[in-house]
C-alpha cells in the first residue's frame, strides 16, 4: 500500500482530513530538519496524522524527540498523531526506553480500526 522509498513524505495518502504519512529509512539527526519539515507540512494538512513507521530502520534521540514534538504539537492544536506499523527497530527502541507510555500503543489509531474503509 505504501511505496517504500527513502524520501520522507512520499506515498502520503489523504482522506477526509486524515493524513497517512509513511516515514522510512533512518530517522536520525542528520536528516532531522528534512523530517521536521515533512511532519509540519502533514500536520498542516489533516486533523489526524498517521505515521507509518514500517520502513524505519533507525531512530535516535533526535528522531524520538521529533516524534514527541509531533505528538505534542498535534495535541496542542486539537489534532491527533498516531504511530502505526512500527518496524522492529522502532518497537525495540520504544520498549528499551519505555516510550510506549509517551506514544501510546499502536492500537489506538483510528485509521487501523476503521482501516481500509
Amino acid at each position: 500500500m505504501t511505496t517504500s522509498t527513502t524520501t520522507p513524505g512520499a506515498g502520503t495518502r489523504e482522506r477526509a482530513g486524515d493524513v497517512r504519512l509513511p516515514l522510512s529509512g533512518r530517522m536520525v539527526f542528520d536528516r532531522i530538519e528534512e523530517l521536521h519539515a515533512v511532519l509540519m507540512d502533514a500536520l498542516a494538512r489533516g486533523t489526524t496524522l498517521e505515521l507509518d513507521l514500517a520502513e524505519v530502520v533507525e531512530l535516535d534521540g533526535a528522531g524520538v524527540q521529533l516524534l514527541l514534538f509531533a505528538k505534542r504539537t498535534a495535541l496542542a492544536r486539537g489534532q491527533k498523531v498516531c504511530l502505526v506499523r512500527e518496524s522492529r527497530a522502532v518497537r525495540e527502541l520504544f520498549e528499551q526506553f519505555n516510550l510506549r507510555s509517551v506514544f501510546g500503543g499502536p492500537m489506538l489509531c483510528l485509521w487501523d480500526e476503521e482501516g481500509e474503509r
Partner: protein
Amino acid sequence: MSVDPSLATFLLEARDLLEQMEEALVGCRKAEPDAETVNAIFRAAHTIKGAAGLFGLSRIVSFTHAVEGVLDRVRGGALGLEAVLVDLLLSCADHVATLVNELEADGATESQDAAAGTENEAALLAELRRYLEPERRPAKPPAGPAAPQRHTASPTPATSEEDIWHLSLRFGREVFRRGLDPLSFLRFLGGKGTITALVLLPDAIPAPESFDPRACYLGFEVAFRGKVDQAELEKVFALMEDDCQLRIVPPKSRLDDYLRLIEALPEEPMRLGEILAACGSVTADEIEAALVVQRDRTTPPPPLGSLLVEHGKVSPVVVEAALAKQRQAAQATKARESRSVRVDADKLDQLVDLVGELIIATAGTKMVARNVRLAALQDCMATLAGLVESVRDSALQLRMVKIGATFNRFQRVVHDVSKELGKDIRLQISGEETELDKTVVEKMADPLTHLVRNAMDHGIEAPAVRAARGKPAHGTIRLNAFHDGGSIVIEVTDDGGGIPRDKVLDKAIERGLVAADSSLTDDEIFRLIFEPGFSTAAEVTNLSGRGVGMDVVKRNITALRGSVSVSSEEGQGTTVRVRLPLTLAIIDGFLVTLGETVFVVPLEIIEECVASSAVAGHDYANLRGRALPFIKLRDFFHAGGTPPRRESIVVVKLGEQRAGLVVDGLLGETQTVIKPLGKMFSRQKYISGSSILGTGDVALILDVPALVQEARRGRREDA
C-alpha cells in the same frame, strides 16, 4: 543500630496495616464480610507490598505479592472468604509481622537465611498458590533474584546488587549538534547494571514556533540497579558533562534527598494517562501496584502514595496530575493526617521527667516565696504554679492512649484460642474509648492476655456442658474499661461455669495456704487463686493450668500500683476486675506527718480528713454514726515518739471500703512526682515510692491498699 528514619516509618506503618488486616480478617469470621472489609484487607496487603518495594525488601514484596494475588481473587468474587482461607491469611499476616520484626531487630537487614521463617514461608506460599488460578503466574520476586541484601542506614556508596540509584538527566540543547545521542549514553548505562525504570520527559519540548529539531530538549528519570559507585555513574555521562544536568540520588537516600530533587526539577504537568504509566516505572513491581491503586481507589492509601511521591521515583509532575483527580476525596484524609504527629515515646518520657523536675522546683520556689513574705512574688508564684499544673496535665495527656487498640488485639487471641480449645467463643468489647497511660497499656498486655486465655480455658465450659446447662452454645468473653476516680478499671468477664468456691477452698487447705477450719468470705476465697502455685484446672492444658499465671498476673498488676479482684457466681460466670492508676509518673498527693516523717497519701483515694474521735483502746472511730475502722500509723510502723494532743484521721476509700489513717498532722495537697524506691527498699511493702518535697526533704508514698489489707489481716489474727 540506627535505622533509617524512612524505614522506621515503614516499620510503623506496616505494623499498623497488619493490625488493620488482622482486625478485618477476624471480623470476617464473625459475619459475612462485605466488600469494604475485603477491600480493607486487600489494601493493607497491597500497601505493605508497595512500601516494601520502595525499600527493595524483596522478600516481603514477593510474599505479600502472593497474599495480594489471593485477595485479589477474593475481591473479584472468584474465591469465597471461608474460614480456612481466613486462617491462612491470618497466618500470612503473622509471617509478614515476623519479617517486619526481623527487619527491625537486625537493624534493617532483610536476612534471606533467617531459618525461623523460611520453612514456614514456603508452606504458606504453597498454601496460597492453591488459591491462585492455575494459569496465574506463581508469585515470584518481582525485582530480580532474591539475593541476601543489606540495607545500610546511611546513603553510602557501598552498594549491593539490589541497590537502586535514581538519576535525573536533563540534556542541554547542544547535545545533538555535538554528535552525541542521549539514547546511546543510556544504553551504555544499561550495560553497567539494569535500568529498572526509565521515564522520558518531553516537557521541555517547546511550541512549534520555537522548536528547533536540531536542539535537544530531552530529559530522563532513570532508576538504575547495579554495583557501581557515584563516581562511576558520573563517568558514564562525563563526555557531555557541560551539556547535561545530572542529578544522582544514591540508594537508600533519605526521603529529603528525593524531595530536594523533586523541587529542583523543572517539569510541567503531563497527561494523566502518560503519568500513570510513568508511575509504573518507579520500580519494577510498583508498575502494577501503583496502577491498581490509581484505578481502584478514590483515595489512595496515604502511606504508599506519599512514599511514592517522597521517593521522587515519580516526578512532581506525575504527582501533581495523578493526585488532581483524587484530591477531593483525599482532602479529608489529608486533614486528619496533618492533625496528628508521631512522636517517639522516649521523647514523651523525657518530657514527663522534665515536668516532674519542674514541679519539684516550683514547690521549692513557692516555699521560698512564702518565707520572703513578698505579696507580689507570691501572686506570681500562684500563677506560675497554676501554669505548671496545666503543663503537667497536658504532658501526661500526651501519653494517654485509648485502650481500644489493645482490646481489639484480643479478637485474634480469642479467635485462635477458641479454635485450639474447640469452643465457640465470642468477644464483646466495650469502653474502647477509655484512655490510660501508654506505659500502663503496654505493661498490661501480658497480664490481660493471660486473664482472657484463662477465662476461655477455665471459665467457658465445653459446648456439651453449656448445652446441658441451658446456656447458648457459644461462650462470651467481655472486655470492658472505664474510669473510676483516679483509676481505670478493666474487666474481663466470662459467662462460663464460675469459680467453684469449694474446690478452691479444698485445694487451698490441701496446699496449706489456709487453715482447715478457717472461715473465709467468698471474696477471700476467690483471692486465693492469685496465690503462687495455685491452679484448679483438673487437666493441664496447653494454655493455662500450669499453676503459673494468676500469681504472675497479680504481681504484674501490683507492680503497676494496681489491684485485682474477682467476683464469680457458680454456673453464671466470673469477672476479674483490674484497677490501675491512670499514670505512673505523677500523682496528686496529700501530705501528712508522723513525728518528723512526711508521708504522701494519693489524693484520689482520700474522702475527707477529720479530727480524731477515737475512744481509747478501740480501733474504730465514729464517723457520723458509722463505725470507721482505722489504722494508727504510729503503731503500724512502730514509730516511737508521743502522739500530739490532737491527732487527725484521713478517711480513705478503697473500692467499696472505707478506712481511716491516724496521723499526727496534715500538711495539705501537693503534686507528687513519684521516684521509685531503690532496690534496698524493694522489700518495704507499705511504701510504694518516694517523692522530693519543695524543701528538698523526702516524703514516702504510702501504699494504702496494701496497708489496709495487712491491718485487716492482723486484726483477724488478733481476734
